[in-house]
């Protein structure tokens, strides 16, 4: 081993300098690039989610989508919180409202991450655990809900969206991410399986079973027809064929009964949970006034106007910050249950 030639001070200085300069340049290049690309990346992300929700709910470009985020506050008396368009609402575990905090003006254009941070700082021990979306037509009418859920499948968690009508009948199911085997569990993303859920009412889900029998061809035709056409059109065309739907089982993907069951269980549970939670957040009291869910129109996930590239938009960001004023009751009766149905009355 030869000893390397000694480094002179002068040389060391040069080395340090050149490394430092490189690092500084590198940092600034990256920072610049990040600043330039970040909005686009973010908007792409949102756009993708919005596209999916919009497609699931057959919404047009003028519709708006609201994201409701759910939080859990741990501690001796745990709280469940919902970030609603008008602010952060806390409930106890039985669904009784505890308090509500209006969103500060400074956070009017904040991103999801910022809002999460705000909530975590305001209410220590709180973290986000889930979310769902509500879609509104341009005229403010509730188009339906999309809830996100996940269930352990054959190899890993299957993450999926369930789209529901305002009456909580299933419009469609879309698997977002999964790691099932190709040719087996992965087949559940195909129309012939995922559309078997479409058209079922919430009440019928409790009795929904999975069978290993092959999918009858008549049923298959009806199911596959759901792909690519709006829910309403599908129902109009196949309404008659759908008559006995509530007694129809889910026909499992051949050879992938475990994945099929997992997704079915997941959908059942997701709908049941959404039902439970809608009952809670449906009655929102701020300043003593009941704000029926779905009536607020400020906090859009994506507003049509915000979708241009290179604009900074965040999920809960309105284009114009709206004050927390009791909004007018607009066709909110679209929900299937009225205040009288809430259990703790």
């Amino acid at each position, binding site marked *: 081993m030869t000893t390397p030639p000694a480094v002179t001070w002068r040389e060391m200085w040069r080395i340090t300098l050149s490394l430092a300069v490189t690092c500084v340049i*590198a*940092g600034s290049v*990256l*920072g610049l*690039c*990040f600043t330039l690309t*970040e909005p686009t990346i973010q908007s792409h992300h949102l756009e993708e989610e919005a596209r999916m929700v919009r497609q699931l709910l057959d919404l047009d470009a003028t519709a708006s989508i609201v994201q409701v985020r759910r939080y*859990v506050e*741990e501690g*001796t008396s*745990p709280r*469940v919180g919902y970030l609603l368009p008008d602010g952060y609402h806390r*409930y106890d*575990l039985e*669904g009784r409202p505890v308090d509500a905090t209006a969103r500060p003006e400074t956070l009017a254009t904040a991103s999801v991450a910022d809002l999460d941070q705000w909530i975590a700082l305001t209410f220590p021990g709180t973290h986000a*655990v*889930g979310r769902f979306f509500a879609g509104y037509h341009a005229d403010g009418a509730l188009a339906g809900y999309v809830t996100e859920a996940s269930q*352990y499948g*054959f*190899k890993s968690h299957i993450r999926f969206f369930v789209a529901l009508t305002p009456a909580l009948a299933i419009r469609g199911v879309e698997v977002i991410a999964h790691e099932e*085997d190709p040719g087996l569990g992965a087949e559940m993303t195909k129309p012939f399986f995922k559309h078997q859920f479409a058209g079922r009412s919430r009440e019928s889900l409790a009795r929904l079973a999975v069978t290993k029998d092959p999918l009858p061809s008549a049923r298959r035709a009806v199911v596959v027809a759901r792909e690519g056409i709006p829910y309403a059109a599908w129902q109009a065309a196949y309404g008659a064929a759908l008559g006995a739907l509530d007694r129809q089982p889910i026909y499992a993907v051949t050879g992938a009964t475990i994945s099929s069951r997992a997704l079915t*269980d997941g959908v059942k549970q997701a709908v*049941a*949970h959404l039902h*439970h*939670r809608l009952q*809670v957040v449906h009655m929102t009291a701020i300043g003593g006034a009941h704000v029926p869910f779905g009536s607020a129109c400020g906090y859009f996930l994506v507003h049509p106007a915000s979708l241009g590239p290179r604009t900074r938009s965040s999920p809960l960001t309105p284009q114009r910050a709206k004050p927390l004023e009791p909004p007018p009751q607009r066709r909110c009766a679209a929900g299937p249950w009225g205040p009288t149905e809430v259990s703790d009355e």
Partner: protein
Amino acid sequence: MSRSGAVIDAHHLEVTLVGPGLPSVADLRLTTTGDPDIPLEIAEVLFAPEKTNTVIVTTATTLDTKGSYQLFHQATGQWYAIAPSLIGIVISLLLAAALVQNFVFTRYLGLCVFFGVSRKRDTAIGMGVTFTIVGFCSGLLAWVLDRYVLRPLSLHFLEIIVFIGVVACLVQMTDTIMKKLHRTLHKKFGIYVVLITTNCIILAVPLLNAMNASGFWESLALALGSGLGFALALFLMSCARERADLAPVPLIFRGLPIAFILAGLFALAFLGFSGLQV
């Protein structure tokens, strides 16, 4: 709320209560950790045989054996956490990273070094050992940097440059320290330390941790599991390749092509681990 119980199977869980006495079904409220607002249906509560203060709760709904649950005893106002033990989780993550999701055979990472070093058993063992140690250290160091520097300062766009920096510094440091402390060790393992920089696994571990926002134990398990999985793959492959070297392999398959076929067969065998829930 410390852990005080475990899920036994899909319909049973075991909880050690603070006080004596058998709580009634109505007195208990069982929820999953993520959904504390939605209680799960409890069918029956019984004392566990031969254990004091421990009850077995039978549920109507199906439980996830790897999930975590909360039990609230309304009479005493006591919360109980039911979750897999930390060691269990770490072992399970470790096995998952080493076998089920083996970095080489299912995530196809570190292949350059894998094919380059697996020709001889001795070099494979040397590389495996060195990589496991250095990878473990760099994984933890990168996690600390990510959690306490990059994340709070929103500098995640620097993660690539920071992680490669961490790896490079660690490799340099290991090399220098080894050279100073143990000459023979350096002679034996020095060459592998230098090679580590070009192994993408060592970079993929912190990137995956950052991407999934993993906690400390998860990162630790991933860092260690990836190293062990790589070492295992390297060792098995080197044994097989030493044997294949003696075989009259068709001329056009000599060398790398047969190594790839071999890796394919290994990947095929490792399919057996798929879906494994430890």
